[in-house]
């Protein structure tokens, strides 16, 4: 059952990234998550917002980023959608591979998956939607899940 839901449509700017992070931090705090979990949730949202603004919409002022925060009795669910060409999930490199360890980028999705209980990435030709789930009472599933 949804207890609280809020949506934002934002420009493709770094300010949007900061707003997304701050909003996530506030909502996670309000939901009762502890300080470490709040930091992880906020960072996951920040990384997803960076991907949307930078890689999805490429800072295009005509393209928007949509943020949805939904608090249910069981989960905090955050959905971030861009209007880019669609992320190719098969081309996301493994940042822990020896050849990639010293690369300057490519760790965003990895951190998101590390910090959230569930991560669902839905790319399409009209944009990418990433859904982040954090269980209120801890992870109910064994390990992280990511699907397209």
């Amino acid at each position: 059952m949804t207890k609280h839901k809020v949506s934002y449509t934002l420009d493709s700017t770094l300010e949007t990234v900061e707003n997304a992070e701050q909003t996530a931090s506030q909502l996670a705090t309000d939901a009762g998550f502890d300080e470490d979990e709040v930091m992880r949730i906020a960072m996951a949202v920040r990384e997803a917002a960076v991907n949307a603004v930078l890689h999805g919409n490429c800072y295009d002022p005509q393209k928007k980023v949509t943020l949805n925060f939904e608090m249910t009795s069981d989960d905090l669910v955050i959905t971030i959608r861009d209007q880019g060409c669609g992320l190719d999930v098969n081309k996301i490199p493994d940042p822990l591979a020896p050849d990639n360890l010293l690369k300057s980028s490519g760790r965003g999705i990895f951190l998101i998956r590390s910090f959230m209980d569930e991560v669902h990435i839905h790319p399409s030709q009209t944009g990418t939607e990433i859904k982040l789930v954090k269980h209120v009472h801890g992870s109910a599933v064994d390990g992280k899940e990511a699907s397209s």
Partner: protein
Amino acid sequence: MSMKISTRQVDGVTILDCSGRITLGEGSITLRENVGQLLAKGQKKILLNLGEINYIDSSGIGELVTAFTTVRKQGGDLKLLNLTKKVHDLLQITKLYTVFDVKDDEAAAVKSFG
């Protein structure tokens, strides 16, 4: 809070005392510019004091890696000092903790540059 860096010299080692956030945008650029300026002046022994860094994102991690590889390519060395728990945990998760030479004592860190 954005990133702030102050620079000092100790026994031939340049210590960058960093505070604030290393994130996409201003923080990453500040770090890149400071390291670039040191290399341009031939100062290749660099110790990044991250004791007052309270937040770093994937872009900031990337900037640390870039600084490290850039200094190494020019025959220098870049080490990290005084990691906060948050930064320490992030470097562990990303398997970079063993890539960087991480110190927790400044005098010993300076001496380790040789």
